[in-house]
């Protein structure tokens, strides 16, 4: 369980050592390596017809629409505790080749994006742009432990605590 957890959480770091731009297993039940072409879409737009410019400019959840019409929710990129929106947004409405893990559990299917390549002839890149953008926005600070120093996180935890209940604190050991 611990191995699975840390592989899944820190997959980016493990993959960083790999030479090939190809998906690596994270040890999650129901995972399967997948590489496919698909169009980057704003999921709310795809479902409801409410379609702002540029897929909502990074504020909406994005997905991948295959040629067969299958809509895939992208829930994760390679950065720890981060999703895939910032890796997909530059390709809104365009076709990419996505590489990562299709994870199918009894709850639902979702996709962890590890690499992406714009079609028809773009270059492969890691799905770690959330972390890169976070670093840029935080004076070049490394993003590996971003969640420990992120101002939004600190503000929320200060207001309501680690349990979400003001005043309820972890017991002292």
């Amino acid at each position, binding site marked *: 369980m611990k191995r699975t957890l840390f592989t899944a959480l820190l997959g980016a770091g493990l993959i960083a050592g790999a030479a090939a731009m190809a998906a690596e297993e994270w040890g999650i039940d129901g995972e399967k390596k997948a590489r496919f072409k698909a169009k980057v879409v704003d999921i709310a737009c795809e479902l409801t017809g409410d379609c702002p410019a540029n897929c909502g400019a990074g504020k909406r959840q994005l997905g991948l629409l295959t040629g067969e019409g299958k809509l895939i929710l992208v829930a994760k990129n390679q950065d720890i505790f*981060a999703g895939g929106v910032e890796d997909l947004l530059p390709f809104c409405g365009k076709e990419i080749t996505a590489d990562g893990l299709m994870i199918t559990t009894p709850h639902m299917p979702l996709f962890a994006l590890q690499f992406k390549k714009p079609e028809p002839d773009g270059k492969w890149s890691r799905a770690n742009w959330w972390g890169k953008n976070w670093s840029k926005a935080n004076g070049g600070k490394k993003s590996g432990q971003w969640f420990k120093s992120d101002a939004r996180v600190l503000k*929320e935890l200060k207001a309501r605590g680690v349990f*979400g209940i003001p005043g309820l604190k972890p017991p002292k050991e």
Partner: protein
Amino acid sequence: MKRASFFHALALAIGLSVTATAASAAAPAKRVQVTGEIIDTWCYVTEIMYAEGTAHHQCAVWCAVGGIPVSILGSDGKVYVILKVEGDADTVANPKIVKIQTHKVSVDGDLYERDGVNYLIVSQVADDKGVVNLTHEEYGIQPFGK
């Protein structure tokens, strides 16, 4: 005048065409009421850690700020991925959504079922009981402890 009418008609036709395209992409929605806990979709679905209640609250905040989709774990056991809340489609790292992680809520909304995923457009948050699922005594603080 004739030219203006022509362009007006053309613009209208294009507008209708665009509307029709958007509408054709739209799937039928079901009106639903969902009661459940606001959760981090990734940790819960993959089961890489215990991902409910106070034990997972801090991690849920991290993941919501990191832009991972937020869902409601319904009392029916289903996961409902939130795409809009009361007209606001800003669901990526939205402070309003970060703030209600782990809350038990009752919502009204439109459900879109597509390729095995339940997507929810929340039209109204009818009730918000705050954080009531106290799991930290049993599960500690996920995933790293204190």
